[in-house]
């Protein structure tokens, strides 16, 4: 089971984190159910994918990691997840996903993304069966971000 978007999403996330947040020590590992911690509250952002590939990617940003990211960008302290923080992370998810779509278009795969959608729950439950459902944990010096890539190649 080789999700064709796993590597592009990892590469794009790594590049964006490096460029925007100066994080250079970034690695990935497949996300197993046991890795999903329920204790820490998270910001969950869904980005729909339409076109040659159909599906969605869901980003899970833990609270502390989120606050640290916004602090790096703004130079200001943040203590709670609020509209500002959520919106900034939604834009980061949008940028990463947009970069993946640009990479795909070079390979003549034509896809578009939908606007970021904030989920209240973790949002991992899908009623439809998808061809690919993979989870990835991206580890950085300020914590890890989980991505779920859910996809049909038609």
């Amino acid at each position, binding site marked *: 089971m080789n999700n064709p978007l796993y590597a592009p999403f990892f590469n794009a996330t790594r590049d964006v984190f490096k*460029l925007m947040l100066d994080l250079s020590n970034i690695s990935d590992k497949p996300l197993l159910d046991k890795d999903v911690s329920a204790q820490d509250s998270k910001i969950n952002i869904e980005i729909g994918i339409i076109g040659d590939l159909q599906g969605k990617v869901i980003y899970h940003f833990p609270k502390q990691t989120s606050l640290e990211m916004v602090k790096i960008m703004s130079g200001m302290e943040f203590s709670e997840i609020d509209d500002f923080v959520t919106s900034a992370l939604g*834009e980061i998810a949008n940028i990463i996903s947009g970069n993946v779509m640009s990479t795909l278009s070079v390979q003549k795969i034509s896809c578009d993304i939908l606007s970021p959608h904030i989920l209240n729950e973790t949002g991992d439950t899908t009623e439809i069966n998808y061809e690919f459902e993979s989870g990835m944990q991206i580890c950085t010096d300020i914590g890890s971000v989980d991505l779920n890539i859910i996809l049909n190649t038609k």
Partner: protein
Amino acid sequence: MIWKDRYKLGVTLIDEQHQELFTRVSDFVEVLRSSVPWEQRVEKVNETLNFMKDYVVTHFHDEEKYQKQIGYPEFAAHKKIHNDMVKYVAEVASQYERDGYNEQLMQQFAGKLLAWLINHVASEDQKVADFVRKGVVEDE
């Protein structure tokens, strides 16, 4: 918002404008994030918002002029990114006025703007500098 020297393109006018833009957005975010009650800071928020809005337009215009001068091949695509942002800012501003200066909308707007601007300057605008340095547009 933190300016970094690695954002520099090596074009004095554009680099100065980028730094000024960072300062204006920082001022805006700082006022927006202060702990004073909304009623007491809304006026200052609106003032910094207007400064920043005008400055974005001026800066995009000058940057496009520069790209045209050097024959930047991705000019049209870059201009579209600018236009989309100007359109988004205008839409938010008019909704903000219509809704009677709603704080939530401004917080959402500022968060997105912060991330958008850092990425744009650190990534999209750097492609222009790469073109000047190497004479080619590089794919990521």
